[in-house]
């Protein structure tokens, strides 16, 4: 990103670097180089001084060398031809007597991300692998992986791989771990490094010599190993026992994961392990390193999914403290919600109630939702607390409480009575869309038990013009229609007003359509309305089935100690799905949604793929206009597949019919003028499989009937029947509107 004035800066630095006086003075020379690096860090394009920097690499000053190498690694891809000039110096440094210089040169050379460098680095790497200084060997081993990356996943060099496998026996622990890492990258396409029995046992024996990074890495690689016998399995577990108590939480988590995976056939061992890491996990949860604490809490939640009682006796550890950061508090509330049992429910609810009045609205709301979650088991206590919260008359509290009530009434119908008593009066304190929707829904569904329900809804109807959220208006329509069924006298007038507003004045199409739909539904008759609006609800217990109380440990063991528990499974699925799509090629359309990703993700592609309809249903394709000629030809060539007579009374407006048919994707090819007797019309439609329906309508007002003849180009009775029923519905509706 070229910043303003960067050209001048480059010019000035170039001059300084060329100045022989500065070159002679080491400190001044180094200072100029430092300035170059500083600008580079800030994002200025410094590739203009590449030539001068290459010259500066020929020095005995190690710090200067390091800086120049850093510079070269950044800009080498931009100036590959100039970078080749530096190779000479680097190669010379690779045989320096000082191991540090050798290592540095080799590392930098391997990091020059530019094409054509491979042929120069191959030999130094091979020499490096056999260097007597372990420092150089470490660098060389990783250099192999870098070289492979430059090649771009081409063929694997078998000799090199063998050399690396043999270096797994190196004395230096870091060389060993680097070998594993390097092999893993080189053999990525073949499934990574192979951990067989000798290697696994060798690594196990070296474990205690490694530092924490090495230990974590090796534990991760050992996941791949399958012990031959039960005996071997338990030997390994014994060897690794001490790592469950390591000072590094990362190693503890890694060891836990390994235990869980290795012992996947021994549930009691798994449980035992989870009991033993309780201490270290709790320690991490109360540690001062907040980020680590956050990660630990995420994993505690994961464990709680399988073992709900696991941390119950330590519930006080998850009480929030005032000064903790937001993200820890939210996690703790979630944890508290999950470890509730008969003994601690009182204290936990007491604590959660305290959070509900927190200054941070976000935190308060999550605490209320948590109480709602607990209410599924301990309904009475929770409803009481929630009701008390309504008394505070706080906007942000009331809206969440009402939303919680809505979910609760659905899941635990036994609390309906209590909720209905609590509701009156809270409409004054709700301003946001979600809260209003919840309240309106409750009033609609349980309105017969809330005395003032119609009057509350009336307020909403009166202010509907100034309502900004279409979702609220839709909810209002449904609720009022429902309430109308149980209390018709009080609602009829305002329902009329609302329908009139929605159909005549509303701008939002969805609301208008819903209004029209209800209007027509009412025309069909009150019984039909009842049948549709008060149809049997889905089983409330189904919602609970979605998150089963206990998940087996094995279902998440492989996700333990990765990013999955941190992001949550759903979010991670969307992330990794996109990554998969990216790998397949960026031109692939991304159909996934970012629903769970939160506001931080730039949502460039939100489109959802439309769900394909069931194959049995009829799907008429819009805008399939046939020419009159083609229609005539086809019409004459086909036989009548179906003929039917519908009753028709009263006046007739062809335009209305045409419009109505258009809505259901039936096109009018030709029709007689209004008033002609007998009146005739020819219609056509096509479904998604390509089947054509050609129709003739014949209206004879004298007989008060309409004759329909349908022809089909493929004989399929199933779709024919559904087509006819569509046609009947349209004509039926039009007729009723007229009468």
């Amino acid at each position: 990103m070229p910043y303003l004035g960067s050209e001048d800066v480059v010019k000035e630095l170039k001059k300084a670097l060329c100045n022989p006086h500065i070159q002679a003075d080491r400190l001044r020379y180094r200072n100029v180089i430092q300035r170059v690096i500083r600008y580079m860090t800030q994002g200025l394009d410094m590739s203009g001084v590449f030539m001068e920097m290459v010259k500066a690499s020929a020095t005995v000053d190690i710090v200067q060398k390091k800086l120049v190498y850093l510079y070269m690694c950044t800009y080498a891809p931009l100036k590959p031809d100039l970078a080749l000039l530096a190779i000479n110096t680097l190669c010379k440094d690779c045989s320096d007597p000082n191991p540090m210089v050798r290592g540095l040169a080799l590392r930098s050379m391997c990091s020059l991300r530019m094409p054509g460098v491979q042929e120069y680095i191959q030999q130094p790497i091979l020499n490096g692998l056999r260097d007597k200084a372990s420092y150089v060997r470490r660098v060389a081993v990783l250099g192999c992986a870098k070289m492979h990356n430059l090649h771009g996943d081409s063929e694997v060099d078998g000799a090199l791989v063998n050399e690396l496998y043999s270096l797994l026996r190196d004395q230096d622990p870091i060389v060993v771990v680097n070998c594993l890492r390097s092999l893993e990258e080189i053999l990525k396409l073949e499934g990574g490094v192979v951990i067989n029995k000798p290697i696994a046992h060798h690594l196990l024996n070296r474990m205690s010599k490694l530092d924490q990074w090495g230990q974590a890495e090796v534990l991760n690689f050992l996941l791949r190993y399958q012990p031959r016998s039960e005996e071997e399995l338990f030997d390994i577990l014994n060897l690794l026992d001490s790592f469950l108590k390591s000072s590094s939480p990362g190693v503890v988590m890694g060891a836990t994961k390994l235990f869980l995976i290795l012992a996947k056939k021994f549930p009691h061992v798994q449980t035992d392990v989870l009991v033993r890491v309780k201490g270290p996990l709790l320690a991490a949860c109360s540690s001062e390193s907040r980020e680590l604490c956050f990660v630990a809490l995420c994993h505690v939640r994961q464990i709680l999914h399988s073992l709900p009682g696991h941390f119950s006796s330590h519930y006080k550890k998850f009480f929030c403290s005032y000064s903790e950061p937001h993200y820890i508090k939210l996690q703790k509330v979630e944890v508290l919600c999950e470890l509730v049992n008969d003994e601690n429910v009182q204290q936990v609810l007491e604590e959660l109630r305290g959070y509900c009045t927190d200054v941070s609205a976000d935190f308060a709301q999550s605490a209320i939702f948590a109480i709602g979650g607990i209410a599924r088991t301990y309904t009475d206590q929770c409803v009481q607390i929630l009701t008390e919260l309504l008394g505070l008359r706080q906007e942000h509290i009331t809206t969440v409480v009402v939303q919680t009530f809505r979910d609760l009434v659905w899941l635990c119908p036994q609390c309906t009575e209590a909720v209905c008593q609590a509701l009156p009066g809270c409409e004054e304190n709700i301003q946001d869309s979600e809260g209003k929707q919840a309240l309106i829904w409750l009033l609609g569904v349980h309105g017969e038990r809330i005395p003032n329900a119609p009057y509350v809804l009336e307020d909403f109807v009166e202010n509907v013009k100034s309502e900004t959220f279409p979702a609220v208006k839709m909810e209002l329509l449904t609720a009022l229609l429902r309430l109308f069924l149980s209390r018709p006298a009080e609602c009829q007038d305002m329902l009329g007003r609302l329908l009139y507003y929605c159909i005549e004045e509303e701008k939002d199409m969805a609301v208008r359509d819903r209004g029209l739909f209800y209007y027509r539904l009412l025309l069909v008759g009150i019984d039909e309305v009842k049948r549709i609006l008060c149809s049997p609800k889905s089983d409330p217990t189904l919602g609970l089935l979605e998150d089963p109380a206990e998940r087996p440990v094995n279902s998440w063991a492989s996700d333990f100690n990765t990013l999955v528990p941190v992001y949550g499974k759903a979010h991670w699925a969307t992330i990794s799905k996109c990554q998969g799509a990216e790998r397949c090629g960026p031109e692939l359309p991304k159909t996934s949604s970012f629903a769970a990703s939160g506001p931080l993700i730039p949502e460039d592609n939100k489109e959802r793929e439309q769900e394909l309809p069931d194959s049995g249903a009829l799907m008429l394709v819009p805008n399939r206009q046939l020419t009159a000629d083609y229609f005539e030809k086809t019409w004459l060539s086909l036989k009548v597949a179906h003929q039917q007579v519908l009753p028709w009374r009263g006046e007739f407006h062809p335009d209305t019919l045409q419009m109505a048919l258009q809505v259901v994707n039936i096109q009018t090819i030709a029709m007689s003028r209004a008033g002609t007797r007998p009146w005739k019309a020819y219609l056509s439609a096509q479904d998604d499989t390509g089947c054509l329906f050609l129709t003739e309508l014949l209206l004879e007002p004298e007989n008060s009937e309409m004759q329909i003849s349908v022809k089909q180009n493929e004989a399929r009775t199933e779709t024919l029947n559904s087509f006819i029923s569509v046609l009947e519905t349209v004509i039926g509706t039009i007729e009723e509107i007229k009468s």
Partner: protein
Amino acid sequence: MIGGLFIYNHKGEVLISRVYRDDIGRNAVDAFRVNVIHARQQVRSPVTNIARTSFFHVKRSNIWLAAVTKQNVNAAMVFEFLYKMCDVMAAYFGKISEENIKNNFVLIYELLDEILDFGYPQNSETGALKTFITQQGIKSQHTKEEQSQITSQVTGQIGWRREGIKYRRNELFLDVLESVNLLMSPQGQVLSAHVSGRVVMKSYLSGMPECKFGMNDKIVIEKQGKGTADETSKSGKQSIAIDDCTFHQCVRLSKFDSERSISFIPPDGEFELMRYRTTKDIILPFRVIPLVREVGRTKLEVKVVIKSNFKPSLLAQKIEVRIPTPLNTSGVQVICMKGKAKYKASENAIVWKIKRMAGMKESQISAEIELLPTNDKKKWARPPISMNFEVPFAPSGLKVRYLKVFEPKLNYSDHDVIKWVRYIGRSGIYETRC
């Protein structure tokens, strides 16, 4: 595996940026600044996913350190690495501040070069790193001795200590650093309390010394006291129950498990020997007794008594009590017996500072808070009263019983080593609800 490491100041300007893998581009630097540092709302998580790239960040004063990766890594490990990075930097140039980072930016690049290679953590022990990082530079030709050190350092058995260290004076410093955390209900009931402690050792010892560390751990004392019943009962009172403890890599864990003895060859210089946590029999150095009375709608009377609860001969320092006040406070009158109290409108709190306070004393503050009448019906949430202090003892009750040094090859014995032990108890989150 870490793809890149960035350091920003509070404005979001990049101070250090080091990229290790090709899949992390320059735009990642800007993505983090825009989405996290400049974000309007509070930080929602220390792990952020922006365009399928994970950003792990920690904050030190107003400096942001972010590690970036596209892989599914172990979150705990990445954070540990960032902490380690902070420790190493602090060991080289002290406090992590914008100024220090700007002044030492060459050094930081050098460190980043050594600690991570291709995104994989390499050697991160401060002591061992010192051989590779040449702050003074200018000399390429190392002496023979130094060169052999680099080679021997890894061919030897232990990675954390090099051979051939010599000191004229053999000296060691032990610091027992504890932070005591408390959450107390208004009625004076302890909701939760725990001490997390660290034993930090600074060793300046020659050769390859073998050290043995002993403390008043309940299990050890009971084990030793089996023979003499008297001793058990006598020392039983002073022994403490450690909930869990972890050790530096150098401690031989097998010996700890079998004999509960802590023996090790220490790294040179400063390191954290042990980390532990206790929850039982904690000495709470201070008790806070709050009394809040609402007089009408525009006045609030607050009285807070603090009692020190330790030996009268000891002195607590840097005591600070923070009493939150409502948002609509218009004026505050404070009277305190000791120290200085001030109402800080910007922080919405009365801050009461006492320089020193001896044990078994008590002091009180009373304040009258005038409130502006508001039509906001929102009730004041009453945040807890928090406290900061430093005491010269370990609130967990931990005592160092001995630290013995054996160096069989060189001729100095345990008696010749000068040893220093210091206990510091600090407040962690020390809150009393009111």
